[in-house]
């Protein structure tokens, strides 16, 4: 009888708690960060397509420059709008807590609060390169098999992330990361009051910047589910980004090549 108990116990651990024993939640989140973000400075051209009730309605395009801060291990981002024409040339600097927005029409740089990452054109917070392991503390909720947007079954760790720093964009995130590959599959973002704001799926993993990385994200507006935005990550390339770029006065001087 005892050996049967031991076998059942071993089976239950293997079935429910598999890999978690070997990986802490922080390890899992950090490994998923490495799938999304390369370790060197890079830039990408992100195309955001907004669908309203299933129909494409608007398209925005942004060039994002990202570089990890060696002191905090969090990314600093520069975001330049290229589409639509009414927003072309606007630039946002995110080097927490140093956040600025530059409009070439008024030639003025305005300091913005962390919350303003979530308003304005195309919710800049959705395109920023972020290491979640830096801003959040994770808890493993369990293991789940979920379906990804390409209708593939993915064995995932289901994690609960709570904001641990002031620079965290959302207060709470539910996160699904695939066993073995550490690919991020899905995330749910919550407001301070606990309201579900957005559901995000990654898809179209392909070789980019030396690893298999998602080429697209799908964001469902949980408040109004008829609004869906896709973000295509294109033209990724490593680029040297001097430290001087991450200050307000550099924004009007940002190179256009």
């Amino acid at each position: 009888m005892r050996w049967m108990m031991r076998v059942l116990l071993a089976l239950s651990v293997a079935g429910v708690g598999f890999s978690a024993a070997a990986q802490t939640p922080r390890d899992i989140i950090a490994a998923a960060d490495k799938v999304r973000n390369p370790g060197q400075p890079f830039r990408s051209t992100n195309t955001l397509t907004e669908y309203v009730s299933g129909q494409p309605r608007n398209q925005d395009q942004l060039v994002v420059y990202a570089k990890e801060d060696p002191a905090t291990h969090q990314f600093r981002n520069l975001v330049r709008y290229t589409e639509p024409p009414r927003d072309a040339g606007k630039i946002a600097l995110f080097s927490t807590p140093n956040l600025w927005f530059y409009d070439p029409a008024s030639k003025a740089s305005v300091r913005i609060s962390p919350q303003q990452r979530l308003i304005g054109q195309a919710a800049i917070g959705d395109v920023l390169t972020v290491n979640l392991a830096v801003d959040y503390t994770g808890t493993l909720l369990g293991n789940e098999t979920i379906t990804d947007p390409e209708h593939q079954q993915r064995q995932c760790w289901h994690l609960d992330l709570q904001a641990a720093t002031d620079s965290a964009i959302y207060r709470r995130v539910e996160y699904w990361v695939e066993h073995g590959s550490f690919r991020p599959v899905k995330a749910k973002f919550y407001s301070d009051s606990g309201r579900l704001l957005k559901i995000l799926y990654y898809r179209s993993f392909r070789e980019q910047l030396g690893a298999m990385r998602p080429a697209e994200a799908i964001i469902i507006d949980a408040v109004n589910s008829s609004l869906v935005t896709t973000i295509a990550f294109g033209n990724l390339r490593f680029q040297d980004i001097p430290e001087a770029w991450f200050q307000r006065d550099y924004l009007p001087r940002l190179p256009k090549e």
Partner: protein
Amino acid sequence: MRIARFAALLGFMHVAFPALAADQDQDLQFIPQAVQQAPPAAVPAATAIDTNRNYLEDAFSLTPQRGNLAVPFPSPAPSRWEDRLFLDSRDEWRLRDNLRLTYSGRFNLRAANDLDFPSHQTVLNEVREAYLTWRPVEGAWLDLGRVNLKSGVAVGFNPTDFFRTRSVVEPLTVDPTVLREDRLGTLMLRGQYIWPGGSVTLAYAPRVTQPTAIYNHIELPSFDPMLDRTNAQNRFLLKVSPELHGAFSVEGLLYQGGNRTQIGANLTASVGQRTIAYLEWAGGADAGLIQDALAYGRQTGSFPANAPAPLPADSASRFRNEVSLGFSYVPAGTRLTLNIEYHYNGAGMTQQAWHNWFAAAARRGNIPGVYNALWYIRSYAVDQQQLLSQHTAFVRAAWVDAFVPKLDITALANVSLQDGSGLTQITADYYLSRNWTVGGLASVTFGGRRSDFGSLPQAGGILLRLVRYL
């Protein structure tokens, strides 16, 4: 039995997860078919980033006017209606690796109730900027030409924006953020060096012409670059911005325009997740708004050189401060940004000065030229983009995706804290498509007949606009 119960529990645990996962898979139903079937959006091949912005706009405005003014307004009165069709351009060309050419301007065609059509007044070309930028080494730039050099961290009033004087030509709105978008630059040589520890800017704008009288809307030159507005005196600016990489930012400025020297500072602080606090200050010796206006009027021939002052004024040249103190705030669960500011202009009109202004009109209005001189003081403040009253409050709310997606609404109020009069304006812009925007604004001035805003000839305004981005 116990084993059986335990095994059953384990079995339940194993089937419970797929049940949870099935709940998660419900979210996939929200992904539209078009997205499920579409490959990732094609991203154009990496080329130079195009940030040029050109658009065609037609703006039609009505300006209801107030009757029975406390102080009669001299002619020409503001236009009752105006239609303006303009091409607004902002372009940049790369000439060499380290040499660029920038142009920014607006070509207007105007029609109004008090303008002959067609006439030379129909055409108004504003060259906002035209300059060459040379980058001799990484982090250093030299700009030569007409440059819009702006400073300041506040929204409603920028004391450190020293090159703002006389730069705005016939604005369509009183929103200060829009006023900054359409103003003339100054002919200058500007050098800037930026390194990881901060930046330093030095600018010299030469005097190339004499000061001229204040323009009115029916006497604007068609193609003249209007350098008399921007380069009628020698001006220098030194600006130093150390990079603090923290929740605070600081900037120091030293400015000299003609024989007047001012110093200034800009401070910002990030407070929590939703608030930015800021302070903008400038100070220097000055004789005060009334004295400055009358001196400028005499210098430019608007009054005889020996014309007496129409009202008593504190004309002592002493150190006077200009301040904008405020904060921006994002209320929880909204896409709204609120700015609240207090403005102080030490050179502006005190309560006593306002009393004198109205009293002079009542007592001496029968003397030719008195009304002209009194209104000239106010025109001078507008032309200089200086606050007329000493103490004002400013509130601005910008709401993105208001009520429906792609509708932006901006509301603002500018209130004199001395007499409670003010101006409110609401603007709405709806982005019909990538290239088309339709918008409108309505404004109202309020206050007693003998108050700052209540004595204006404009009771308010309505404007409708249609924009086509090219």
